[in-house]
């Protein structure tokens, strides 16, 4: 009975046109769900690293997430492919979320390492997982160097080089 009415060219054509209208409306609705342009363009954070103290963890917020910026002391060794040289000093720049289940690890200044309270994961000063459940080193956010300023959210040559080295 339902089909009877759809049979025939006109019935099918009408059904098809109605479906096109429905799909177009769904596309508009999907776009309405998209993040606003102002949200997309606000995804950058800048940090001036010149005033940072060595061996003291600086936490900045980038896209709602904590980002660790750690300036090394003279006796802390840089790690290849993870430590960033800005001016005369080395830094760690990484997303401060444990790669196990997303807790925020704490920095132990005396041992130059990170300890995650949730399930006991540990990371080196450069964020490499050395103990416990975390499966991989802390993630590195896209960044760009602009003199002594760190721009989070933009991919600079240093970042690209790091990613290339990893791959």
């Amino acid at each position, binding site marked *: 009975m339902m089909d009877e*009415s759809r049979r025939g060219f006109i*019935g099918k054509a009408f059904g098809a046109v109605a479906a096109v209208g429905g799909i177009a409306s769904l596309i508009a609705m999907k776009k309405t769900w998209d993040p606003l342009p102002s949200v997309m363009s606000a995804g950058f954070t800048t940090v001036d690293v010149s005033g940072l103290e060595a061996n003291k963890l600086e936490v900045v917020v980038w896209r709602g997430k904590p980002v660790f910026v750690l300036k090394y002391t003279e006796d802390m060794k840089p790690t290849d492919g993870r430590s960033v040289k800005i001016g005369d000093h080395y830094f760690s720049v990484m997303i401060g979320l444990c790669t196990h289940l997303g807790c925020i690890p704490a920095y132990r200044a005396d041992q130059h390492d990170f300890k995650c309270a949730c399930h006991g994961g540990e990371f080196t000063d450069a964020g490499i997982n050395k103990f416990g459940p975390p499966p991989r080193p802390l993630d590195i956010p896209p960044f760009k160097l602009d003199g002594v300023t760190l721009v989070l959210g933009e991919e600079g040559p240093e970042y690209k080089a790091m990613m290339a080295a990893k791959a």
Partner: protein
Amino acid sequence: MKEFKILAVIVALVGITYYGIEPYAHHVMHPEVAPADFTFKDLKNVDTSLVGNVENGKVLVEANCIACHSIESVGHPQVMPNADAAASYGVVPPDLSGAGWIYDKNYLANFIYDPVSAMKLQHKFTPESGKAFPMPSYNWMSAQEIMDIVAYLQSVAPTAKSGTESHKKTFEAACGRCHSMAYAGLESTTPIDTIKTYMGATPPDLSQYIKSRGEHYLYSFINDPQVLLPGTAMPRTGLNKKAQEEVIAYMEEIGDRKKAERESLGIWVMIYTLIFAILAYLWKRKIWSEVH
């Protein structure tokens, strides 16, 4: 046939009601006013037929104007920061870089001669009120000298460009010392508190004025505020036609950003709906042919 008759009755009833509550009611509530006058012909203190001398104008401007006004385009910087200027004058004095092109020539000449009457603010700056307009009248100058100044200002004004950026510049120069435009992130250059004291009321944010007032109203209002709002503290700004149109264009670009998208999508949706309606009709005819 009968259905068409019914439709005609409904269309007539709805049409009459619509006419009554929209065009007619609008006409009663907002009677037409005199058309905008971009020659400002009520201002006759200065003989504007005189040909100005740019060189002399430059000398006069440097002697008389730049103590308070900046003219960034020729390297006369602001005398003091906005907040301080506002504190001393009540309102930030305008930069004169664009004055030669945004203001009508007759208006500009007569403004220099007597600002208050050019702005039609005699009701505000009365002797009894004890208020005085921060800029003095240059009615001691000769008409020739005033025209020299006008000629100089016109010569330094940038040649007009179009597009949103230039519309924005015109808006900032013409309106932005008193009015904010929050939806464009523009704040009045005179701080809100100062301007409120100076004007007696806070000049409104203009973000949505293109919608709340409409182009038609703005066109008359900006040209001469007293006609539509007698007694208002808003001065007649003396914009020429082109500058006023740019200001209104800017208000539309900010206040109704999606206009172009709306209109182009509108056409497509109408075409789609027409196809939908025609097919629906054909389908209906087919279905009903079995029952009639």
